[in-house]
């Protein structure tokens, strides 16, 4: 236990407090140094090396970056797939979860239970969620089975067709992540000040007008926050395509993170993987910065 006494000598007191603070913060600092600072620096270094998992490392300068853009057959498709996924996933997910949050208004009975229901796939292991969808999407699975026996329609083989495979990765991901943004929007809607909503009601706003001109602008900071977070996570998508389609057919659904994983741990090219990871980081930073810039046009803060 500490032996500090409350003396008016501020100098000693401050020194003691500094020493004690160091004690409190040192586990976090040590961990952060070893498991974040060191890897970040190491990652920069690795990006400039031919760095196999086992064997000799060799300095190659910007060669890894050049190779990615010019010689790596899967890199451009991985970039394209990541952007296609994000472009489809972010708007669909944000709009659907916003609609859901608006529909689950206070007049709906059992909305607490419904919220929990929509939130379940967010917290269950992604691998388990993907396995469920993989079963449903098999050629003899539930979707095609129902289509055939009810309507006599043969659906495409979803996971074997390049375009359908990407669509299904998006659909599965939207299903999985819907509850998260829904809760963010629900929380925001519940915080709307009664006075403003009431004033708008007296002015004759109702239905769609009320939602579009009053409620949405007022929760726009939440929408902005959710869009940014959703975009960042969508650029990092990995488990859904890796397990649902294996990135295939061919490389039609292989996103950047799976490309990084494959380079590093299938082909043992850690240097190339590190370089690709920095490109991903750069993309995330640039897109986030762009969104922050664009927010002035549509996000309304209270003051």
């Amino acid at each position, binding site marked *: 236990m500490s032996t500090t006494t409350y003396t008016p000598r501020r100098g000693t007191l401050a020194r003691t407090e*500094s020493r004690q603070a160091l004690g409190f913060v040192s586990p976090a600092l040590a961990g952060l140094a070893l498991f974040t600072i060191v890897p970040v620096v190491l990652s920069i270094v690795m990006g400039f090396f031919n760095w196999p998992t086992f064997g000799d490392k060799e300095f190659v300068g910007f060669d890894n970056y050049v190779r990615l853009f010019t010689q790596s057959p899967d890199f451009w498709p991985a970039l394209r797939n990541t952007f296609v996924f994000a472009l489809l996933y972010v708007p669909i997910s944000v709009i659907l979860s916003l609609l859901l949050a608006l529909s689950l208004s206070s007049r709906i009975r059992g909305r607490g239970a419904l919220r929990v229901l929509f939130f379940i796939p967010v917290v269950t292991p992604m691998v388990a969620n993907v396995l469920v969808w993989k079963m449903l999407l098999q050629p003899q699975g539930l979707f095609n089975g129902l289509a055939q026996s009810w309507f006599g329609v043969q659906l495409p083989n979803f996971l074997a067709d390049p375009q359908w495979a990407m669509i299904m990765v998006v659909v599965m991901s939207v299903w999985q992540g819907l509850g998260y943004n829904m809760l963010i929007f629900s929380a925001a809607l*519940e915080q709307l000040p009664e006075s403003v909503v009431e004033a708008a009601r007296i002015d004759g706003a109702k239905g769609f007008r009320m939602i579009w001109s009053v409620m949405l602008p007022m929760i726009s900071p939440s929408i902005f926050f959710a869009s940014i977070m959703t975009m960042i996570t969508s650029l990092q998508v990995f488990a859904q395509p890796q397990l649902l389609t294996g990135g295939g057919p061919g490389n039609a659904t292989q996103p950047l993170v799976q490309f990084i994983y494959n380079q590093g741990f299938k082909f043992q090219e850690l240097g190339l993987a*590190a370089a690709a990871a920095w490109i991903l980081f750069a993309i995330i930073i640039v897109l986030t910065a762009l969104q922050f810039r664009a927010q002035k046009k549509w996000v309304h803060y209270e003051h």
Partner: protein
Amino acid sequence: MSTELISPVTAIADAEHDAAPVEPAERRGRAPLTTGGRIRLVFAHLGVYLAALIFVSPLVYAFFSALKPNSEMFSMPPTLVGSELRWSNFADVFAYGPFLTYIGNSFFVAIAGTLVVLTVSTMAGYAFGRLRWKGRDLVFVLFLGTLMVPQEVLVIPMFQVMQWLGWVDSYPALIFPFAFTAFGTFLMRQFFRGIPFELEEAARVDGAGPIRSFLQIILPLAKSAVAVLAVFTFLSFWNSYLWPLIVTVDYASHGTLPIGLASFSGLQGTRWDLQMAAAIISMVPTTVLVIALQKHLVKGIAMAGLGGR
């Protein structure tokens, strides 16, 4: 706003917007309904419940598929319930692979990881939020800066670090590398700062040092925030996939549940019935957690939503 003892939501909301919600709009629109309004309300209920039904159907179908004989998994026309309810599938999972090991590993790693995160981040949060020391704000900014670095940038060099430490295929490798992220520290600092300083000053005057004040005054007041952090940390460890996939080579000894599940689908002669049973089993702990803590869900999201996974 500042007189009441500060829920984490308002603490965060204050920090972010500096504007207190006047009054929750919850009770809005309780005026008696017109006939048209009542009809609309009925349709609203129908729509929402239909959406919920469609939404949950994959999980329901997966649950009943886990109870089917494997030969009936893809019967045509599809049926929800097979010719029998084969509960033994749930037992057979444990004979199909080292499933018990996966579950044990997952629980151990998630619980140990959560304890590490809670210890480290409450301590650091206290130092950042309530103690005065030189360079505090600078170090804190550095902490926050590391939040921007995505996991994908870290995993490649982290694997190299694990090799150097000889930690590949070990529990420490599954527990420690992502237990020191700044997120928990940030959360705790924000919460601790909202606790009135007078409470602690009084104890300090009575001769309590920071350690005693931290353990006996601050931590007990922060129970709810610590609980929220605990739940979200547990979930992220339980569901973690990319890092365990990289750092585990021998699944039979150190595989966690997601890794085990994923390797199931690669086994020869795919047993969809057992895969579904295994998937359902892996969903149970987190689902129970969410149902048990549903009251705190919105609060937790408002708080932890800043970090996500």
